Each structure stands twice: as structure tokens, then as C-alpha cells.
């Protein structure tokens, strides 16, 4: 499902204008990402949780150039589905 189809479905459900749905969606994503960037985790009940994960810096070796590089530490967005969602998806 593409972003367009996704937004269409939401607008059908909420009876919002397509343009409005698009705006709200980008704002929602923006707020979630802001919170994550601030180091907060966001839990949505029945769906799962988004949380930042710190990836430590590490040393890598390139075998072709035979060089060692240091990859700096970074933060990634991690999603874990909720237990309720797992139960729902594995009902059958």
C-alpha cells in the first residue's frame, strides 16, 4: 500500500478532506519523530511503541581497501509491536 492509498483510506474513514488528511498525517509523523529525537518513547496502545535506540560507534574493516573505519554512534528509530497486536495478528 502506497502513501497515497493509505491517505485515501484514512480520509474515507475520518470523512476528512484528502488534503487535510495529508497535512494531519505529516504533522502526526512530525510530532512522533520530534519526541523520539528528544529521547522520548511513544507508545500507542493496540499498535506498538516507537523508541529511540542508541547505536554505539564501532570499528569496521574494509577487506578490499584493507582499511579500518570508525562508524560514529547514531540514533535509530525502533518499533516494537504491542502484545495486543501480536495476539490480533496471530489469532488464527
Amino acid at each position, binding site marked *: 500500500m502506497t502513501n497515497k492509498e493509505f491517505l485515501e*483510506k484514512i480520509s474515507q*474513514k475520518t470523512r476528512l478532506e484528502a488534503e487535510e488528511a495529508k497535512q494531519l498525517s505529516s504533522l502526526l509523523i512530525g510530532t512522533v519523530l520530534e519526541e523520539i529525537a528528544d529521547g522520548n518513547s511513544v507508545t500507542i496502545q493496540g499498535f506498538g511503541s516507537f523508541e529511540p535506540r542508541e547505536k554505539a560507534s564501532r570499528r569496521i574493516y574494509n577487506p578490499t581497501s584493507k582499511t579500518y573505519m570508525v562508524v560514529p554512534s547514531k540514533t535509530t528509530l525502533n518499533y516494537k509491536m504491542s502484545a495486543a497486536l501480536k495476539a490480533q*495478528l*496471530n489469532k488464527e
Partner: protein
Amino acid sequence: MNEKLSFQNIVDTLARKAGVQKKVAETFSKAFFDTIVEAVSAGDAVKIKGLGTFKLVEVGDRESVNVSTGMRFVIPGYKKLTFTAEDHVAEVLNPQAKTSVQVEESAKVAEPTKVAESVIVEVPTKVAEPVKAETSIEVETPKKEEDIETLIQVPEPEQVETPQDAFAGIDMLISTPESVDDLRQQYEEAKAKMETAVEEARKANAEKMRLEKLLERLEQNVEPEVVAHKENIESPANASPVETAEDTKPISLIPVAAVSGNPNPSVETSEEEKRQEAFNRVMTEPSHTQEEEVSSKPSGNKRFWLTTLIILLLAVLGVFVYLIHRNIEAVEKVQTTEQTTQPAKAEKPAQPAKPTKPAAPKTDKDSLAKAQKADSVKVAAKPQKDTSKPDVKKTDASKDKPSTPDTKKTDAQKSDTKKQDTKKPEAQKPAKEERPKTHRMQRGESLTRVSQKYYGTKDSVRAILRVNTFANPDNIPVGAVVKLP
């Protein structure tokens, strides 16, 4: 920092940001996540712009061990909703973009190797360029020769092609010059035939490719010949009635000009191909066909044909001599003879040259033929020997084969004492007197080990291989039953 935000917090901030009622924001957010779940449970991956992709992944059953009891148990598989963040997310989360830094110590090690690599890379390029140049030369040289041939044959297009039906139309054109429309019709008829001939010509193209290399070598030969050809063309045009030379030139041009457009290039190429083909044929085939052609041709052009054909013959014979000898000296001789003969008027030198040159290749041919015959005789003799040898072998084998089983049978029939006698020398080292007839392969076992185990030597592997048939004797599956001879 490190706050755990709930759905409600997000809805509040969203409502504030968007300037919408909280209810709207809540319904929207709910719909947002519900649609993801719906789509995903329908087996669809959801791509959300600015966030990432949600996808349902099946996790298979896996085995685990209960740490406290040490019991093995199976964790059943399940479906899992996975999320892959977009690159945009990483940019948002890591505002200060850091790039990976090379470690200094290793940099010193790396530099010399890099230099070495660059050197290695450069070498093939240098090698490659001259090769390209060579290929381009190969392409160009035949073209030049084709051009030369066209130059030679434009005044008389039906020279070599007349035996082929395709050019009957052109013959007609030459004999009866009519209005342009008629010419066009006739030309189109001829073209239809030509198209069939083009396919043949394409087949001949393959032969042409082979001969291109030879032609390359013959460049030196061809160039003086071309000069001679041009001279010849000029001289007969002056000597023979002017009508033939003048008529043929415009007529040969007319069809090309009349049907301008698509067919032209193909026709031209086909003509070139045919000429090449004909040239190849002339090169490969003996001179009889050409002489026949000469006899069949119209009487008016006979002189003209004779001269050109004789020159062609000379060239062909030169090729023959070159092919047979492949000796630079021989080629030079041919060139010198040609140069001496060609500057003078074409008819006179060509005729005396004719008997001299055929003589040399004929002898060559004879010698070749003799050599071939000798080879064939040898070949004929060899197969006979070969056939005789296998027969003997077969007979030997047939004698051997029945004999060995017989002995085995007799051995089997005779009492156990004999068996023991036979086994004892084989299995001296292992004390086991009675050997099992089969062995089940175990992990890490090889045939040599089996041989060592049952026969005491590694040399019995061959005997085991003789009795058994393995897909790969070096890798026998565990549990395979091996017969023991």
C-alpha cells in the same frame, strides 16, 4: 528525555500543532494506526511517507532450551509487524551528520596497496587500447577492399553476378535501356530476387569474416592489383567501343537513384556482400567456373571480360600461392611478377602470366593433394589399427571377464577353508577373520578408512570402488551401505 509518551500525549500535541479540535486529532490518529493494522493483516506492506514501511513478517518455529531444567522445547512461529525507518528519519534523529572516519594506523597500511591496485588497473587499459585499434583496422581494411571492388565493378556489375538470378534484371537493363518507370519495375523485380540472395549472402558473410584476416594480410597484394585494375578499366574503355562503357555506367546508377529510400542501402550492401562472396568463391574455387562464365557471356564484352577475369585470376592465384606457402618470400615474388606484368597493356602480359602462375599452384595443389591423400591413407590405416586393437582388447576382456567370475564362483562353491585362505592374506593386520559383507558409512568416515578397517591397507579402496557405484566417492552420505568385496 526518556519520557514514555502515550497516545493521548501525541494527540494533544498534534491538535495543538494543527490547530484542530482534539476529537478530530484523536479520530485521525486512531484511523492512522488502524489502517496500518488493517492493511498489514491483509498481507500488504504499508509505506508511509516520512516515516517508513510497515510489513508483516513470519517468524518460523525455533527450538530453545529451558535454562533451569535443560529441556528442549519449541517456540512456535508467529507473525510479527516490522518497521523499517526511512532515511529521512535517520536525518531527523541525527541532526549532526557524522561521517565515518578512517583510522590513522590502518591508513598507512592502506596507501601502498592502493597504489598497487591502481597500477594493476592501468595495465589492462593499456593492453586494451591497442586491441581496439587492431579491431578497427580489421573493420576498415575490408571496407576499403570492397570500395575498390565496387570501383572496379561499377562499369560491369554483371561480371561476377551473372550466374546468379538476382542480376538478370540488371542484364535486361543493360541490354534494353527503356524509360525510367520500366527500369524501376524491372529493378524491383530484381530486388525481390536480390532479397532472397541477400540471405545467401549473409551466410557467405560468415565465410567472409574468416577470410577478412587473410584479406588483411593480402593488403600488400591488393594495392598494386588495384592500381592495375584501374588502369585496365581505363584502357578497355578507350579500346573497346565507347557505347558499352558509357551505357553500363549510367544504367548501373539509374536503378540506385530511381528507387531511393530504404531498399537502396540493403541492396548496395547485398551487392557488396555478393561481390565479396563472389570474390571469396573465386578465391576458393578453381578457375574452371570463371572460364565457363567467359564463354557464356555476350560476345561484345568478351575482350573486356577476358582482361578483367585474367587479372582477377592473377589476384586469386596470388591468394592461392599465399595461402599455400604462407611464405613472405613467395608473396613478394608474386607481387613482383604482377607488377612487371600489369603496368603494360592488360591483355598481353596477362596471357603469358596465366600459364606460369597456374603451374606453381598446381604443383602446390598436387603436393597438397598428395599430402592429403597421404594423411587420409594414414587416417584410414589408423582407424583400422584402432578397430583391430579394441577388438583384441574386447576379446581379452571377454576372455578375462568370464574367467574371473568363474573363479569367484568356484571359490564360493568351495568350502569355507578356501575363503579363509583368501581372506587371510588380505586381512592380516586386523584379527577379524570373518569380514561383514557390507559396511554402513558413519560420520567422518572415508573409503580409505573403511579399507584400512577391513583390509588393513588403504590400497583396497579401488576394490571397493569396483564393487560399488557412488555418485561421488569423495563424498559419500552418512548411512550409505558400502559393499565389501
